[in-house]
């Protein structure tokens, strides 16, 4: 697999697994407007995933569905952050905030990069990511600066998720951590939340060593497609 295809796969997997998790909220969100908003974001992520996966599979003659439905967890390249359980709404918002700010920065950089196809997809996706980041930041501030309970939950979410953010900046993405941190710290500050200390930095997603959650997510996601090999839907 070429470096470009590998990168497209990684970007696609991040977006796909994020979409799958976000869609779990459908019909369960804290308010109807938020149900719609989360579904929107899931749809954006899914849309980006399809473009990236299509591109990733071209060289090896695999479709977006081949890649989404016929790999097992050891072959997925998403960061661990996106596969973590949704937890409560604060955890979901925390995951989205950390991911979307990262995605926006990454897409911005790719949109200026040498690969034309990646640049095109990234140019489209970055606008969406900017909206996702804004939406997540808004909720982070509301929850952080809302009630005592919401403050405590949002802080707990940020603390629990923080270790998983380091993995996002592995390899080529290392340069993005500084602008990412600046933006995240601003949002946390506005939300009256404490920025956790760096420390434990779990990783493995980029080489296919995931948490125990991913294979369960995939079991559900892939069950129907795999039960009918070669069928058209």
């Amino acid at each position, binding site marked *: 697999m070429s470096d470009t295809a590998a990168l497209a796969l990684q970007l696609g997997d991040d977006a*796909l697994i994020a979409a*799958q998790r976000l*869609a*779990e909220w*459908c*019909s*369960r*969100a*804290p*308010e*109807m*407007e*938020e*149900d*719609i908003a989360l*579904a*929107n974001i*899931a*749809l954006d992520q*899914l*849309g980006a*995933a*399809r473009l990236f*996966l299509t591109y990733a599979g071209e060289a090896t003659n695999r479709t*977006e*569905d081949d890649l*989404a*439905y016929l790999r097992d967890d050891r072959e997925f390249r998403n960061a661990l952050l996106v596969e973590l359980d949704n937890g*409560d*709404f604060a955890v979901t918002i925390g995951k989205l905030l950390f991911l979307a700010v990262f995605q926006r920065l990454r897409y911005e950089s790719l949109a200026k990069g040498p690969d034309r196809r990646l640049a095109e997809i990234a140019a489209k996706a970055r606008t969406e990511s900017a909206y996702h980041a804004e939406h997540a930041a808004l909720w982070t*501030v*509301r*929850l952080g*600066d*809302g*009630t005592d*309970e*919401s403050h405590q*939950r949002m802080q707990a979410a940020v603390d629990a998720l923080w270790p998983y953010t380091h993995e996002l900046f592995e390899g080529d993405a290392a340069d993005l951590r500084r602008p990412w941190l600046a933006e995240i710290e601003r949002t946390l500050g506005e939300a009256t939340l404490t920025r956790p200390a760096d420390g434990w930095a779990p990783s493995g997603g980029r080489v296919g060593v995931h948490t125990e959650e991913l294979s369960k997510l995939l079991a*559900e*996601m892939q*069950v*129907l*497609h795999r039960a*009918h090999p070669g*069928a*058209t*839907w």
Partner: protein
Amino acid sequence: MQTSAERRLDHQTEAPDHFDAIVAADQKVEPRDWMPEAYRKTLIRQIAQHAHSEIIGMQPEGNWISRAPTLKRKAILLAKVQDEAGHGLYLYAAAETLGVDREELVEMLVDGRQKYSSIFNYPTLTWADIGAIGWLVDGAAIVNQVPLCRCSYGPYARAMIRICKEESFHQRQGYEILHTLSHGTPEQKAMAQDAVNRWWYPSLAMFGPPDGDSTHSERSMAWKIKRFSNDELRQRFVDMCVQQAGVLGLRLPDPDLRWNEERRAHDYTQPDYDELMRVIKGEGPCNRQRMAHRRRAHEDGAWVREAARAYAEKQHV
């Protein structure tokens, strides 16, 4: 110069005539207009029930988002379920023009004082159910709802125009799912037929009890909330489905279904109205599950809504 009390009195004595005139002229009653209390109550009940149905209706289809067989289908289904949330919102907004709060209505749904369409108390067992719901359930909804676009209450009629446009899009998607399945592998075709077998009669029951047993109907007709009887709409639906089933290559599970040249319509077997009554009463396969799901979402989200309120208040200080 009149006092405001006098104006109100004037308004109230003149109002009934005005209301009757609007209805008679097939014009729209608007929120500012006087309307009979019973008209208002009927509309609130109907619109709220309709809104609740959109919200509860997210569950049976939502059940298959995580397992949709291709990414494209996943996107289409997610967008569809999202549309239903949107329809819920328009409808709650229409109900609010009648002087109730959405929160109040949601409470009534959650504690069982208001109902939602019984169709959503059936389970979605396979992917083909997503197709069958689109084709049959959305199809029935459209037949029910198209006349509501001409309903005498303006905000409701306008909401319905928007909703019907999206519903017919959804119906086409469902039809297309079934078409693909029925032209796919033998297992896929069997899955499609099985889904149609299970959803056919519950869809017929969506039009409500037979005209003879229908309460509220006559008055709703006079007020031009309702324009056709349950049985008229049911017949229209059957005739439409027969033709489409042929193209799909699927059987409708009614051995007595046949064209009646004299009536220029299909004869068909009525759904089991006792079953319908049991499901309305709360004894469908999924009533408890749907309510528990909704209630859990509502309760789990309470701290979030509270936080949002608290934050908003701080901004206004």
